[in-house]
């Protein structure tokens, strides 16, 4: 069992938890993820490691309620436990393999969309601890959905916040901010974009035009997370890759996003039904016309 030592709702439907998982905390690096299971019959859910404390043996996870399993997970409190936490999985971010001194000469731009802020944070923090200040664009639909702004501010070089509806910070999509920054004369050597698949797709379309190399972190459907099932296969540069072991980070200009987005919908019907069952319980009697 893996004890939850902190549980907090960051904003509507997005939760942060610190979990005791010493084996994960000991060797994990930015860019890696874990798979958690809430209970004995729980689904295996991949989540990015947002932060870690090697001495305390804890990791920080951030998740958004997107289905029945994550909704149930949101009810966990400090003192409760996860049945399983396995990791760290996936490859560490390319940045952590580079020489920190050479990184200092690089202009790095992070683009974080929605809950994608969680996986961006440990990378920016890692760089900050090594004296590298990276610029960060954080975008969300609206002001209330922004997460980890203060934490990010503390570790980022320049932080640019934008909301789609203009309720806070700049107004418009993250792609608009990239365009604006470039127009303002900013020059970047590399961009790391993490967020919803559709955001990463459009960031990549833009940065390709701008000739700005871009790394994305993919979050496809997974089961085991060790290369065993192939559920997470994505096409990168015309080759089939398993996001769990070959990724999760890939060259964004090579990723077939349309296929990846399509594959994410694989279980949408079943997930929708599970959500209805959870929300409506016994009162759900098949009004949707689809239930068995």
């Amino acid at each position: 069992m893996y004890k939850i030592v902190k549980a907090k709702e960051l904003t509507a439907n997005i939760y942060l938890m610190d979990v005791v998982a010493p084996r994960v905390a000991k060797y994990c690096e930015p860019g890696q993820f874990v798979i958690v299971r809430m209970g004995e019959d729980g689904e295996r859910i991949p989540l990015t490691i947002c932060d870690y404390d090697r001495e305390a043996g804890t990791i920080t996870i951030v998740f958004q309620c997107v289905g029945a399993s994550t909704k149930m997970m949101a009810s966990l409190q400090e003192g409760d436990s996860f049945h399983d936490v396995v990791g760290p999985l996936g490859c560490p971010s390319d940045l952590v393999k580079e020489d920190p001194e050479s990184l200092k000469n690089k202009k790095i731009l992070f683009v974080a969309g929605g809950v994608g802020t969680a996986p961006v944070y440990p990378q920016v923090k890692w760089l900050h601890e090594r004296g590298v200040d990276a610029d960060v664009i954080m975008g969300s639909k609206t002001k209330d959905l922004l997460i980890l702004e203060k934490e990010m501010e503390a570790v980022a070089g320049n932080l640019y916040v934008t909301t789609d509806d203009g309720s806070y910070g700049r107004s418009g999509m993250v792609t608009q901010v990239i365009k604006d920054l470039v127009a303002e004369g900013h020059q970047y050597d590399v961009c790391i974009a993490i967020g919803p698949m559709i955001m990463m797709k459009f960031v990549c379309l833009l940065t390709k035009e701008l000739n700005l190399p871009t790394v994305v972190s993919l979050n496809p459907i997974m089961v085991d997370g060790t290369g065993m099932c192939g559920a997470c296969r994505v096409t990168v540069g015309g080759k089939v890759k398993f996001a769990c072991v070959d990724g999760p980070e890939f060259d964004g200009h090579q990723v077939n996003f349309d296929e990846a987005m399509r594959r994410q919908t694989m279980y949408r019907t079943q997930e929708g039904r599970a959500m209805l069952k959870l929300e409506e319980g016994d009162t759900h009697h098949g009004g949707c016309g689809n239930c068995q």
Partner: protein
Amino acid sequence: MDVLKKVPVREQDPQVRAANFEEVCLGYDQEEAMCEASRCINCRNAQCVKGCPVAIDIPGFISKVKAGDIEAAYQVISESSALPAVCGRVCPQETQCEGKCIRGIKGEPISIGKLERFVADWARENGVVPEGCKEKNGKKVAVIGSGPAGLTCAGDLAKMGYDVTIFEALHEPGGVLVYGIPEFRLPKKAVVAKEIENVKSLGVKIETNVVIGKSITIDQLIEEEGFEAIFIGSGAGLPKFMGIPGENSNGVFSANEYLTRSNLMKSFDPDSNTPIMRGKKVAVVGGGNVAMDAARTALRLGAEVHIVYRRSEEELPARVEEVHHAKEEGIIFDLLTNPTEILADDKGWVTGMKCIRMELGAPDESGRRRPVVIPDSEFEMELDCVIMSLGTSPNPLISSTTEGLEVNKWKCIVADEANGKTTKEGVYAGGDAVTGAATVILAMGAGKAAAKGIDEYLKNK
């Protein structure tokens, strides 16, 4: 009774079992078992033992069954095997012990597998556990993977007095026994979990959720956690795909994914938290035991199921019993057929599969006749789900993170067959991680040999 024939074993009716996940074979009762045991002529130079990769004293245990002393029979088997209830169910006896049985020369061989299963089930139901070791030597050995190779190696080492910890990547121990082989062939709670409990009762510790190569490396286990020897039994977990167009469409799965969802995650149960696609018309590509398992699972989930295999029935790598069961249940075999493309609608969901007919040409290096394309024989199958069951290869997570551990061109760990010794000192390996995908019992044999190898190494260290 006819001494030339096996005592028939009761099975669930094919029509009934095609719609449930309960075990197909019901096994012998004591009367049937004693009757079958009485057919054994107790050969002095028993060939059956030579056919068994873990060399169970087969005439020895059968003579105990004959005498009605089932507990004694169990202890005889336990000396050599940690997983008799599993082996009695999934071993290919027809090519091993039973294939060598003298009775089989004229008539049918003794039903050794079914007798082993009866003895193991009887022991479990009557609370009999294997005898462990009284004296511990305090030396720590790590076993990577809790499948058949790892459990066997760990059990044997514990019996010799070692302090053994198994590290398992998944959340449940058992390896292929829990994620791969379906419930209707090998019940998980009733059989697999109990045999694992027996291994634990020998003093073996099992730590789940540890991915060696990610959570911690082999070298770190030795340097930081004080393990004096390591056994790698991490299996062959990497699925193969065909590389044909359309293979990433929605509704195409590896057999590994499909079976892991159903077996490990229990998604055959509509109340499971893990979803699985319940196809209407499913093609399973491949002809091995895993293909049969995937096909029979899809059938039980309500589909019309086709096995698509490029050679003929004679070359099917699956056990005859599995093919027979699959046919009985209504699986359709499309043989001498090879897929060339998977077709999908504009949203990316599978709608069908383009195939081409094959014929058999001259034998290839495997000795089987090579399938050759019949020109202009393309046709389309209408489908909504395709399961690729083309074999698996070892996962490179361990070999790529362990310095000095040699692998061959198939990424299989190079290890001495006789004692499991690898190219790295103190590190042993066996099972599918060394051979590529094979059988439960061969993995157990390798685990056993490695336990001996490790014992010799640590005694002389």
